[in-house]
């Protein structure tokens, strides 16, 4: 979805895996896709644009009816069912039965990279790039936690999956490591 954010980096990631994605930003384009990636960006901006162009209900309905979706950072926020302290009139697409906290790790000076234990994609750690990143505050039992990181002495969930929806608080599209995109294609979408 190409309303705002680093959608081209996701496109490049899938190109490395020999999948040609499309940049979509209208209702007719979005109604045709097999799976939707919601990129990193500013979640309030994406949400407001989606609302003013009538995409909000369309995307919510498609996700609810089983279309695979993958969200990173802002995308994780938009795929959650609720937000702690949302910005005024901020809507979400929903899909994962969890509540996320925006900018949970702090402002940009607290943005960081760290190695993550992400067993679903293999033994080798995944380098997570966290930029004003959210974390998962609460989640339902159906939500599978794929990776977490310690912050202030507490383990925070930063990669989750519920059925055909995958979300990470960090940005796999900003590293050259394509294992999470590959996981989405092969495990979540079932190709």
């Amino acid at each position, binding site marked *: 979805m190409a309303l705002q954010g680093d959608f081209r980096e996701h496109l490049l990631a899938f190109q490395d895996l020999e999948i040609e994605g499309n940049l979509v930003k209208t209702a007719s384009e979005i109604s045709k896709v097999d799976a939707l990636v919601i990129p990193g*960006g500013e979640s309030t901006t994406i949400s407001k644009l989606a609302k003013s162009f009538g995409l909000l209900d369309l995307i919510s309905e498609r996700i609810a009816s089983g279309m695979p979706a993958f969200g990173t950072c802002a995308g994780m926020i938009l795929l959650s069912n609720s937000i702690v302290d949302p910005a005024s009139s901020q809507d979400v697409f929903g899909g994962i039965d969890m509540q996320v906290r925006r900018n949970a790790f702090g402002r940009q000076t607290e943005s960081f990279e760290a190695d993550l234990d992400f067993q679903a994609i293999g033994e080798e750690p995944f380098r997570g790039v966290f930029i004003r990143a959210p974390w998962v505050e609460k989640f339902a039992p159906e939500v599978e936690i794929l990776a977490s990181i310690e912050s202030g002495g507490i383990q925070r969930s930063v990669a989750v999956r519920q059925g055909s929806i995958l979300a990470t608080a960090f940005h796999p599209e900003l590293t050259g490591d394509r294992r999470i995109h590959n996981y989405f294609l092969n495990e979540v979408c079932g190709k």
Partner: protein
Amino acid sequence: MSKANETEVGSARVKRGMAEMLKGGVIMDVVNVEQAKIAEDAGAVAVMALERVPADIRAQGGVSRMSDPDMIEKIQAAVSIPVMAKVRIGHFAEAQILETLNVDYIDESEVLTPADYEHHINKWNFTIPFVCGATNLGEALRRISEGAAMIRSKGEAGTGDVSNATTHMRKIGGEIRRLTSMREEELYVAAKELQAPYALVKEVAESGKLPVVLFTAGGIATPADAAMMMQLGADGVFIGSGIFKSGDAAKRAAACVKATTYYSDAKIVADASRGLGEAMVGISVADIPAPHRLAERGW
């Protein structure tokens, strides 16, 4: 489980990545909490907190400096989107202050009165990322070599005249395209001519783009201006005086956000352009005597 002590803050990837998240968006100049909220509600990806917008700096004259920390903190408290703030060119102590305030990005800006007519800030010394202005590729690469994590073409701030933004975007884009057509041995002379480090020149020649995000700024006042800049290859736009020096700021702000996203769909840009009220009156760049042109600040 990962431990916090393996983490790294302020890496180039984290700094440049922050700018990647702003792409396709509009960053708006705001001078108070009320304007910041209007910008956030309109869908701005970030706000630039400053005491006077460029049009007022131009009208009132005098020395223009970093904003009062109290004013910046009030805006940080009022909105959840990123907050940027400006420092004078070369004024590293102002940048140190902004770093303690935890603003999300620092703009080392020609809009303020320069503090150093020879050196820019060594931006590698900071955890916080910097955006810098450029009128051409050489200037952009010099700023990147000093640690800038984002570039904006300068345009001529505070005018509402988009012509210089166009010139600078075309110039940067044209110089990048020229590099991509060169033979490897020709890049050494190109680096000399651009007055930029060879390694960066080579990187641009190979990738066909800057190694950081390129926004545009200076004189953008309408949805059509924003759409044109995006079609010329900008990753996003800064709008300074153009919004809050116009009639209906909230409506114009939302319209510019829509035009920046749907820049290639003229029908949407046309709809966004309807009934916006009076645009900023502005001043033609040609009517500004050369010593008062801000774009010429930066070395």
